[in-house]
């Protein structure tokens, strides 16, 4: 089994070794003395550059070559029609300051996308401006601030469950709030009693994702909403796990006031090795006046950009958001349409099937029924000296990417697995068999893993040396 797919491993040199360092000096009649520079960059031919970067690409695992079960990241397949759409010159070659009469198609697409996302989220209005999920969170917190400020209400705390993504507390703190952690109960859900004592007239909002990061649906969400609302706070929905519930419920129906959508998760835009994504934000009616400008307006059949919003929070991105990512998400939603319900159904079926198989191998704390992801505990392996990290690294030898590890913090030795709807049963079976094999392998073999891909990388040395650029590395 360990002869499955794997990325290439080359001893590929960097561009600084492939091309000779070449120094040039600008023409003196263009740049006055004292303002010019010597420019030193490696000189490569196009052929050398292309060969180098094609090799680098091959030294990389990706969704298009194999199963990427990263919990919470929703690594689903990107239909190529999305890429073809974004590459159209009528979208890619638009300047953001063009006259509005020359960008009517772009504005129409964004206007429609706003409305489709509002429907999916059960929200009144949507801004497409945030560039990523955590950027959406930040935008959401700015909206929460603006709302309370408009009422002369100086609330200073944001509640975050202990199962939350790290971005939630980081965002709340960045927006100037004190973070109050709410513990989970024995069922892996928000502890209502603890919530009751955490909520007060200082509570600006609670940030929740539902299903939570254990893949468990917060069944008490209406009670949570009532508790927070009656104390004057707002509910923020982290859309990272939206892939689990489309067609069955929506954040608006659960009582949320602000929602961000991860277009690079639920709506299949590619992750690009760490972005760009997009993180549109939806709000209920009472928060609409505060949305970032410009807003897209429609009058008759014409679209325009409207910045006359006296209560707006201003701007969070240079222009209208990651437009080419928005084009991809629009294409995806039109392709799926009402069939998005089936997306969630297959994602949840895949997760529960894999969970059923793997919970016979490793314990899965907190109840059987899952939504789109589940968390196993590698705790029993510790007695033979094996860590969750070792299992994760060993999976590479079997041709699979590692799951998310050591998160959520609630589960010791956590292995967090999200299969998404785009994997077939045969892939899920092969992955389950790999885990079954790995947990019975010789601990020594696991400690040294991976063996067939690049050897384990020394991260401690990286932090000590801080060779963050080629020149810093060479100065060592």
């Amino acid at each position, binding site marked *: 089994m360990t002869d499955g797919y794997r990325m290439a491993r080359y001893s590929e040199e960097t561009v600084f070794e492939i091309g000779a360092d070449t120094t040039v000096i600008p023409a003196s009649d263009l740049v006055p003395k004292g303002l010019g520079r010597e420019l030193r960059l490696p000189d490569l031919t196009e052929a050398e550059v292309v060969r180098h970067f094609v090799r680098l690409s091959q030294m990389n695992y990706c969704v298009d070559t194999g199963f990427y079960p990263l919990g919470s990241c929703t690594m689903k397949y990107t239909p190529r029609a999305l890429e073809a759409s974004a590459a159209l010159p009528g979208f890619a070659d638009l300047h953001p300051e063009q006259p509005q009469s020359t960008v009517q198609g772009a504005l129409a697409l964004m206007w429609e996308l706003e409305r489709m996302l509002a429907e999916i989220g059960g929200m009144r209005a949507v801004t497409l401006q945030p560039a990523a999920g955590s950027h959406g969170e930040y935008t959401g917190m700015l909206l929460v601030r603006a709302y309370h400020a408009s009422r002369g209400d100086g609330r200073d705390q944001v509640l975050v469950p202990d199962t939350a993504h790290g971005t939630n507390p980081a965002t709340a703190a960045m927006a100037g709030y004190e973070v109050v952690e709410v513990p989970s109960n024995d069922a892996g859900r928000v502890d209502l009693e603890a919530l009751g004592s955490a909520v007060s007239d200082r509570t600006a909002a609670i940030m929740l994702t539902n299903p939570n990061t254990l893949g468990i649906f917060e069944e008490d969400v209406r009670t949570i909403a009532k508790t927070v609302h009656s104390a004057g706070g707002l509910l923020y929905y982290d859309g990272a796990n939206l892939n689990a519930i489309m067609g069955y419920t929506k954040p608006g129906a659960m009582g949320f006031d602000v929602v961000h959508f991860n277009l690079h998760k639920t709506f299949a835009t590619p992750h690009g*090795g760490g972005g760009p994504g997009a993180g549109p934000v939806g709000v209920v009616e009472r928060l609409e006046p505060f949305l970032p400008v410009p807003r897209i307006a429609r009058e008759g059949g014409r679209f325009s950009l409207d910045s006359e919003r006296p209560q707006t929070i201003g701007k969070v991105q240079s222009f209208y958001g990651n437009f080419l990512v928005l084009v991809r998400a629009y294409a995806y939603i039109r392709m799926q349409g009402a069939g998005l319900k089936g997306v969630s159904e297959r994602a949840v079926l895949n997760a529960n099937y894999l969970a059923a198989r793997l919970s016979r191998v490793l314990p899965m704390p907190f109840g059987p029924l899952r939504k789109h992801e589940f968390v196993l505990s590698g705790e029993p392996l510790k007695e033979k000296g094996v860590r969750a990290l070792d299992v994760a690294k060993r999976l590479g030898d079997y041709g699979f990417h590692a799951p998310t590890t050591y998160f959520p913090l609630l589960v010791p030795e956590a292995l967090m697995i999200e299969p998404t709807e785009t994997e077939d049963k045969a892939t899920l079976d092969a992955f389950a068999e790999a885990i079954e094999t790995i947990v019975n392998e010789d601990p020594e073999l696991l400690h040294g893993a991976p063996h067939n891909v690049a050897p384990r990388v020394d991260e401690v040395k990286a*932090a000590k040396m801080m060779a*963050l650029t080629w020149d810093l590395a060479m100065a060592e």
Partner: protein
Amino acid sequence: MTDKEITEMLGAVGIPDIGSLFRDIPADVRAGLDLPPPMAEIDLMRHISGLASLNVPAGQTLSFLGGGIYRHHIPPAVLDIVSRAEFLTAYTPYQPEMSQGMLVAIFEFQSLLARLLGMEVVNASMYDGATALGEAVRMAARVSKHDAVVVPRAMAPWKLSVLRSYADTAGIRVVQAGYDGTGALDLDRLPSEASGILYVESPNYLGVVEQRIPELREMADLLIVGVNPISMGVLKPPGEHGADIAVAEGQPLGIPPGFGGPLLGVMAARKEHVRQMPGRLIAMTTDAKGDRAFTMTLQTREQHIRRQKATSNICTNHGLCAVMAATYLSIVGPRLKDVAEKCMENRMALERGLASAGLEPRFNGLHFNEFAVRLPVDFGGFRDEMLLRGILPGIDLAGFGLPGHMLVATTEVHTTEDIERYVSAVREVVA
């Protein structure tokens, strides 16, 4: 997936049907979806192409729009490389053993931009130049403990708005400093806060190169310098000016304008401040066999480890755009000087031509590839007339506070004939 497989899977889970997987969602929160029916690929492509055809791409016109986003020549190899599935459909390189290729590419981005900016450390990217500035100002406040930043009045209004979104919540006041007759920062009227955190942009929104940065360096406790990366082909980089932090909009480095996104936020700093830096950082190290390897590092600054004590909440960044910039700079290499010189030469030719047609430059400072002109006629009517001639003439500066003025940009994509065509169209329209 076949029905038979679905039945098998439901059996393994021990439930009768898919609906039962959702029995934990209470009735009082249930809600359906009102969306159009699914679209077949062939219909989708027809529909999407139809929407795209309602736009006029800048390449189908003669465009002199800039203001921070520019049309440069993008080598086809750049678009080819970033379309490769292995870059396009990978995740953030949390597992270094499976992501060496992406890690090398981002390391090269950091290294090439460090050379370009003359700075020690560059992070793995921010969303855009505006958010990079917002994060830079927050970082500057953490490092220096000042609670105000002085920024040029000659700054894009949208960038100022984004900056405020980042500064306000950290309790940082944003104070503007005016420009003089040359269009550069007015050093005689700097606010007193300029002795703390000072942001200087060169070229600034009006296209003017700041020539007195050494004096500003003397004055400020913490200096942030913003640049156009293409201008780094000829102009002294922030590091040589002694900048503590440098920022840039990286879009000109091989990234299409894309109606303003995705862009590329570039952020650089001194090594001594690296632990206060936001965002991901890639470092060179070794693997278990002692061979060279790369990995994400100093992650204890980041949200997934440090949670509310992180330097920023940034998680997904613009990695693929960073790969585009790395590929662009690898292909262009030292010839970036030629690109920058061509931009300046074109700007001079355009400036002369427009002046001869009655559009005088507003400022007499040193410009890079962009400048403000006085417009003797109403902008709206002028723009529409130019558009009828297939020309996007420039950006109205009324919103910036200079009514009757227009911002005009040129790059190496313009030929002598393009500039002549623009100038003669202006003659017709203004006459």
